[in-house]
């Protein structure tokens, strides 16, 4: 039994490929827990970052610097009355958030957080991701229709039209990235998520820089389409609060609503993961070709731990800046505790076996985090597109551009 557990750690495949069910289950739980934490963190970060962009402080009351705010919100949502409209289609209304959440979480089965850190590696990995994430629109349509109300219905219509349209541009961008995988010495392409990153490793280039500027344009198309896919600003028409109150989830409340919320954020993380895997080198660290050698390996492997220590240092700075007053004692202690936690994680990351095993995850997460920051930045900066303009961008700009990039990539690749 012990051997069964440790044998996987010595192998260099994913649990799925190794047929190791135990570790597959462990990974599923880890991803589920990590994702939930990420969504909670994202919720807090979005409020904080947006607040600082908008000359305000954001949550400050619940916990030090509002750190416990998302938890308080989650509790509030859980104990809220669960309202189901009398005229709603009960079963579909009940199913809709489940569908959305299930699809949003299922895609993480193939997301490669590292060379060995994925539940499994499918040889249709990217197809699976795009396919399953496209199913989430079903949940949205179901929610909009089942609510039996006009605003959700319009929201659902907008959403389905938008997602179907942008999926095409997104697909073209994805295909041109997949095409790049086949242009290595071996001459065979792959749809596997791990394979795509390995192809970038083998070709010594992140695909965003390949065939400059083709890779960049493809990435750009994907980066726009993924914002539209996840219904975020400036493409948040399905839930445009100034037009449709809340779009498809207008009639939802409490826990059901929180499922939509959870799904939205995990879908954002999922599409960001696709972008990172396809164009930004997945788990590969920056400058993995130019800065090589044992010293550089060493330096880069220290970065994860150091960055956690930096976060911890920021926490302690906050502790010192906290007003010296009795009323703030709990807050100060909480912040110090959080700092100790971060510092502990940082120190743990310095332990050599952990360090080498986990740094892949760190680089992947860091890239995803940048993409998530972009989401927040967009939201703070852009007004919302109108529906016809959205369609115009999708069909008249991104689609021809995507086809052009695809054809050119194929052409350049053959030459």
């Amino acid at each position, binding site marked *: 039994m012990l051997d069964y557990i440790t044998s996987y750690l010595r192998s260099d495949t994913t649990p*799925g*490929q190794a*047929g190791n*069910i135990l570790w597959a289950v462990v990974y599923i739980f880890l991803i589920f827990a990590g994702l939930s934490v990420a969504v909670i963190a994202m919720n807090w970060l979005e409020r904080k970052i947006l607040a600082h962009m908008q000359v305000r402080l954001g949550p400050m009351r619940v916990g030090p610097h509002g750190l416990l705010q998302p938890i308080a919100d989650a509790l509030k949502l859980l104990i809220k009355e669960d309202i189901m409209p009398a005229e709603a*289609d009960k*079963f*579909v209304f009940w*199913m809709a958030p489940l569908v959305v959440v299930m699809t949003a979480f299922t895609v993480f089965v193939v997301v490669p957080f590292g060379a060995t850190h994925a539940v*499994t590696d*499918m*040889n*249709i990995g990217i*197809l*699976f991701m*795009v*396919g*399953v994430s*496209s*199913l989430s*629109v*079903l949940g949205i*349509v*179901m929610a*909009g*229709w089942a609510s039996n109300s006009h605003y959700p*219905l319009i929201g*659902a*219509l907008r959403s*389905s*039209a938008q*997602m*179907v349209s942008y*999926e095409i541009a997104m697909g073209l961008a994805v295909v041109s990235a997949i095409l790049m995988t086949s242009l290595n010495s071996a001459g*065979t392409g792959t*749809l596997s998520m791990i394979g795509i990153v390995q192809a970038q490793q083998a070709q010594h280039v992140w695909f965003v820089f390949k065939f400059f500027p083709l890779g960049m344009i493809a990435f750009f198309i994907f980066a726009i389409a993924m914002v539209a896919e996840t219904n975020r600003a400036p493409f948040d028409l399905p839930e445009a609060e100034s037009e449709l109150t809340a779009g498809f989830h207008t009639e939802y409340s409490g826990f059901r609503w929180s499922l939509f919320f959870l799904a939205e954020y995990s879908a954002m993380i999922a599409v960001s993961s696709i972008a990172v895997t396809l164009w930004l080198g997945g788990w590969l660290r920056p400058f993995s070709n130019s800065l090589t050698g044992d010293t550089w390996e060493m330096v880069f492997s220290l970065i994860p731990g150091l960055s956690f220590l930096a976060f911890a240092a920021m926490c302690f700075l906050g502790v010192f800046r906290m007003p010296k007053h009795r009323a703030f004692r709990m807050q100060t202690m909480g912040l110090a505790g959080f700092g100790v936690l971060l510092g502990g994680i940082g120190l743990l990351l310095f332990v050599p076996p952990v360090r080498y095993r986990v740094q892949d995850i760190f680089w992947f997460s860091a890239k995803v985090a940048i993409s998530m920051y972009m989401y927040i930045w967009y939201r703070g900066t852009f007004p919302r597109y109108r529906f016809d303009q959205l369609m115009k961008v999708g069909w008249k700009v991104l689609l021809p551009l995507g086809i052009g990039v695809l054809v050119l990539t194929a052409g350049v690749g053959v030459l």
Partner: protein
Amino acid sequence: MQPVATTFFFYFLAALTLAGGVLVITRKNPVHSALALIIALLAQAGLYLMLYAPFVAGVQIILYAGGIMVLFLFVIMLVNLERSQREEQFNKQWLLGIIAATALGALFITIFVRGRAIFPVHIAAVAEESNTQEIGLMLYGNYMFTFEIASLLLLVAIIGAVVMAKKRI
């Protein structure tokens, strides 16, 4: 990846497909029918996976469940549902129904009786890893002409739809 509990999954998915299919016909509400159809299609995708055809399964999910059914739902939601709810569920075309059912049943029974022999045996199973490549080579090699004809047909359908829906061209 080693398949686990093959028999169970086969019967489970097959039952799901059949149940979905039956629900499509019997539900009065078209939205429910469409949702049942999606279940049937997804279960079918699972069956494809069991046949070591992951690419077909993925395409099934993307195109049918994710794309076409969304458009179906889109249209159904805009249709006045009250009228369809009042209309009679089944057409009284017994004769045609019986003929079709008999023909289909005869086909199934023949296959069941004759077993595998009815299919050409010499096609080797394609390995899961190279399945996608094989499909690509087949489509753009042996069946190039058929493939192009199908795409032309779809183009005609698109133009026809545009002509019907557009108010001013």
